[in-house]
């Protein structure tokens, strides 16, 4: 028995320890890289110090930066000689930045970390943060100096990469392409290949490739991408194609660069052709061939080569078999070229007849041949009865597109029997149709049968507005006002209702209430401006601070 209890205790302790570890890991994950404490330093802390930091961190994560700053300050006062000192001061400075006290953060926080603990990891973070603060203050020159020093002083540190990313941002604002290329090259080629730097290396590789592609230097672009995607052939092909297509598209827009676009398109296609697997008997190579051929077709699309696009898809059909996927691509291309009949004939070749017919119906809808579209959607019910609700939804959307409200209402009523679980949605649709028909009482009745509140109150109030039933409208808006998240909107609408009803004094009072009760809302802004322009009233009340 004693052994059993011991076992349970052990399991419980283990679970607790695991729980603490997980929770610590999760909370750490919520903090950014610049806000995290090195594990070695954390290990040196006493339990009471850790507890104090956890309290501060809790406030920090919840966004209560003022309280968090006090807690970090308390840590510094209580445990002056602790290993967590620099971290605590760093976090205090982060709190100041969040509280928009950037100068204070630099002067009393980050600089002090560097002065008191120059050898700590936090000192490096602080240096970087000083650069960031300069950027927040709109001083890119000072920031540039700081980031440069980080890159030179700590070349192996992750922050060197981050600093280069910030430098890229500065160069982009200055439209200094030369510097951008220099930094992209440095990040893509010379940064340590770690998991942490992956995002930045990927970004730099892609940007550099884009630059080289636009400049007509395809091999350099490919080389830039290959540095990052050396172990990921799929990604390499994908990004070469995507960036290549984007560059081709950009160059193809102007007559002066059209020749370059065509040349680049040829290079991208050749690159893709080289990646086409010779043997497509295996599923993996089949998928690869489909992907590559699809990309080749898309390049042809970018430079508007009609015949080549069709040829590329037919080639795909020959190699992989003419399945619905390939047919869909061909039909989509025909549709984009406004060849609807050809597109429909391709849809007719679908192995999946349901999908084919749905696509045909969609093409009629695009052509605004609504009756034809509905005929095909209704035929789908016969083909696939189980998904009747889906087809009826397509029908109702078609009737709505064609502004045939009565037919839409009838279809919604059918939906009420086919799919009664979503009765609120269908009633909402019916109400909207009645609104379009300007049948306000029926619309109100349908809105009442929905459970979409408080939006329903607003809609019903609008219907009452059309009926000039001001009192009913105001009652509904006051009901909506009880919902805290729309109270400002409701109050503003109440004022407008009074205005429309010709009750000027009530309207002014209500607009003023909007300003006074919800001074931070955008409705306060609208009410304030309206009171001034419409009524010439300057005393609009309101007024607030950004606290």
């Amino acid at each position, binding site marked *: 028995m004693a052994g059993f209890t011991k076992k349970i205790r052990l399991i419980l302790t283990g679970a607790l320890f695991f729980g603490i570890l997980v929770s610590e890991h999760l909370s750490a994950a919520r903090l950014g890289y610049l806000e995290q404490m090195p594990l070695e330093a954390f290990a040196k802390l006493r339990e009471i110090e850790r507890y104090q930091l956890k309290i501060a961190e809790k406030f920090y994560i919840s966004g209560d930066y003022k309280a968090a700053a006090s807690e970090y300050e308390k840590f510094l006062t209580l445990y002056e000689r602790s290993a967590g000192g620099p971290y605590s001061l760093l976090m205090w400075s982060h709190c100041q930045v969040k509280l*928009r006290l950037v100068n204070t953060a630099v002067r009393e926080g980050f600089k002090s970390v560097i002065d008191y603990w120059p050898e700590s990891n936090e000192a490096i973070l602080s240096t970087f943060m000083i650069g960031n603060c300069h950027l927040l*203050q709109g001083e890119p020159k000072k920031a540039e100096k700081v980031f440069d020093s980080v890159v030179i002083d700590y070349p192996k540190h992750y922050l060197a990469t981050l600093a280069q990313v910030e430098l890229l941002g500065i160069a982009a604002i200055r439209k200094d392409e030369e510097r951008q290329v220099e930094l992209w090259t440095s990040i893509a080629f010379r940064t340590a290949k770690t998991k942490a730097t992956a995002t930045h290396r990927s970004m730099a590789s892609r940007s550099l490739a884009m630059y080289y592609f636009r400049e007509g230097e395809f091999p350099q672009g490919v080389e830039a991408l290959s540095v990052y995607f050396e172990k990921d052939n799929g990604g390499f092909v994908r990004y070469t194609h995507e960036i290549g297509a984007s560059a081709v598209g950009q160059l193809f827009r102007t007559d002066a660069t059209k020749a370059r676009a065509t040349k680049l398109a040829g290079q991208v296609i050749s690159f893709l052709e080289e990646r086409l697997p010779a043997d497509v008997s295996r599923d993996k190579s089949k998928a690869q061939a489909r992907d590559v051929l699809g990309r080749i077709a898309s390049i042809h699309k970018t430079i508007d080569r009609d015949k080549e696009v069709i040829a590329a898809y037919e080639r795909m059909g020959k190699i992989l078999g003419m399945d619905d996927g390939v047919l869909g691509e061909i039909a989509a291309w025909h549709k984009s070229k406004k060849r609807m009949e050809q597109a429909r004939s391709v849809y007719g070749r679908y192995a999946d007849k349901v999908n084919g017919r749905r696509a045909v119906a969609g093409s009629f809808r695009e052509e605004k041949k609504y009756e034809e579209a509905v005929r095909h959607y209704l035929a789908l019910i016969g083909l696939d009865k189980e998904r009747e609700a889906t087809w009826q939804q397509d029908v109702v959307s078609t009737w709505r597109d064609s502004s045939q409200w009565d037919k839409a209402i009838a279809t919604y009523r059918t939906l009420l029997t086919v799919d009664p679980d979503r009765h609120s949605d269908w009633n909402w649709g019916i109400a909207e149709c009645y609104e379009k028909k300007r049948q306000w009482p029926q619309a109100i009745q349908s809105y009442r049968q929905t459970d979409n509140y408080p939006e329903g109150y607003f809609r019903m109030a609008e219907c009452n507005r059309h009926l000039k039933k001001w009192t009913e409208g105001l009652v509904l808006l006051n009901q909506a006002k009880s919902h805290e998240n729309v109270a400002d909107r409701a109050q503003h609408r109440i004022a407008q209702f009074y205005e429309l009803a010709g009750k000027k004094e009530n309207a002014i009072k209500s607009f*003023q209430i909007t300003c006074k009760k919800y*001074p931070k809302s955008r409705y306060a802004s609208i009410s304030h*401006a309206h009171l001034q322009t419409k009524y010439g009233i300057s005393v*609009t009340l309101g*007024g*607030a*601070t950004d606290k």
Partner: protein
Amino acid sequence: MSEAETVSRSLRLRQAIVVTSIIGAGWLILWFDWIAHLSVASDIHLQLSRVLLWIQIEFVGVGNWTWYDEWLWFKWPTYQNPVEVIGFCLSLFPVAWWLQQARKESPLVRYAIYSFCIFPIWHLLTFAFYEMGWMTLKAMAARAGLCITFVMGLGWTTFWVERKSRALQVARLEISGALANVGPLQSMHASVAGVEIGSRIWNPFDMDAWFYGRQRQKLRQSLSVLFGYLIAFILIVLLLLQASGCQELYEMPAGGGEQKQLQQVVKVQKVIKKKFIINPLSSVIFNPPPLEEIKLQLLEITKHAYQVGYGKGAGAGFSGGTNRGKVRFIRLEYSGGDWDQGIDADLNMLIQYNLRTQHKIAERPETRKVAQLKNFPVGKSPPVVYMTGQKNISLGKSETDVLRGFLIEKHGMLFADNGGSAHWGNQFKALMGRVLPNVPYIRVPLDHPIHRVPYPIPFLPYVAPHGGTDALAWVVDGRIAAYYHPGDIGDAWADDHAGVPTPIWEACYQLGTNVIFYAHAEYNKWLDSRKKSD
């Protein structure tokens, strides 16, 4: 009327015309200058000062010109433009005389006199309202005068064209001796004189000109006159509005001070409560209060522990300023929107700035068009201009260039206040994107000097959140070149403070003071650095 009387009258008329022409010419110069919102007085003053200085150096041998300054500028403390006050008032005398004379003249001459007299009266009214500081009335008078001028001009043009046209018709009728084949009703809008076949008339006053066609010539001529007049009027108005006049100066008030926060001083005053000495043998019994109770009254007062200003100098001001310099509040006029929204509040802010900093200020706020900013020379331009509105901002390329020059070369600052819509905020951001294309905006930190000196403002106050709740800034070389307030700070400066709570409008005044002071202090630093580099 005897011959002698006729001669005497004609002589008197000639004299009157000469005197009126002289006064009219003077008035025209003043008016032209003033509608461009430039103070010709300052220019005249400068020229006069130079002449007097030359006389003094030549004949007295002393080169000090301070007393002229004081005489010319401080003799007329009430008026901003004393020369214009005199000039416009003088023009009333010939107006009165001519109005008196008009009664004796034929209707045509009488109406012509009335028409001419409208101009000086209109401008005197507009100018008077401006001098009184009644900006809304000034704007109304200016617009009403423009409308009257348009209608009056249209009337005279129509009359003139009609007369000429009729004369030509009559002349042709006399030659041909027969009416054209038109009925009485048609003659209301068609020519009644027949044109010789084969002739092609080009005279636009002639209804039978080929371009009026063969039917409804009168209607076409009238429409042509109307559109022609409209285009000419618009062109003239645009031309006058473009006129930016001569150079003008902005000088900061001389003095000195520190660019530091106001000190909060807490004065502790001990109030010792009355102590009761009780006779233990007394028949009256009451509970004495604790003898040791001392009530402390803490009175927090804020006082200037230093002079608000920048640099070394006597009195509050700026080391780069001059004795005649003043802090002026200049509002920018721009097309497309309501630049003059809440303009009456500008004076309140100016007065509050004076009360809070003790800097010398101008009598009243001013307005300038964007194009006029180029008239200020480098080193003597306004450190800050204010703009607000809630509609559109439409500035052309030349105006954008002027604004860029003002912000960068002239080291000026733009204080923008969103007066009523998110749209205006977006327009302003787009404008700044064109003015300073390589400068992204930042959210101004709450501990930035502009939010700290002289008043520490722990939050951003606003009347309504038209464009968010953050103050934005465009920073050039570490200096805020444009400050954007998102929530109608100008409304809080108005007499009724838009009904917002006292702490909010007080903070709005403090923020306004901070922004104006920041711009002047930065301008002073720049002047100092220029001096050093020279």
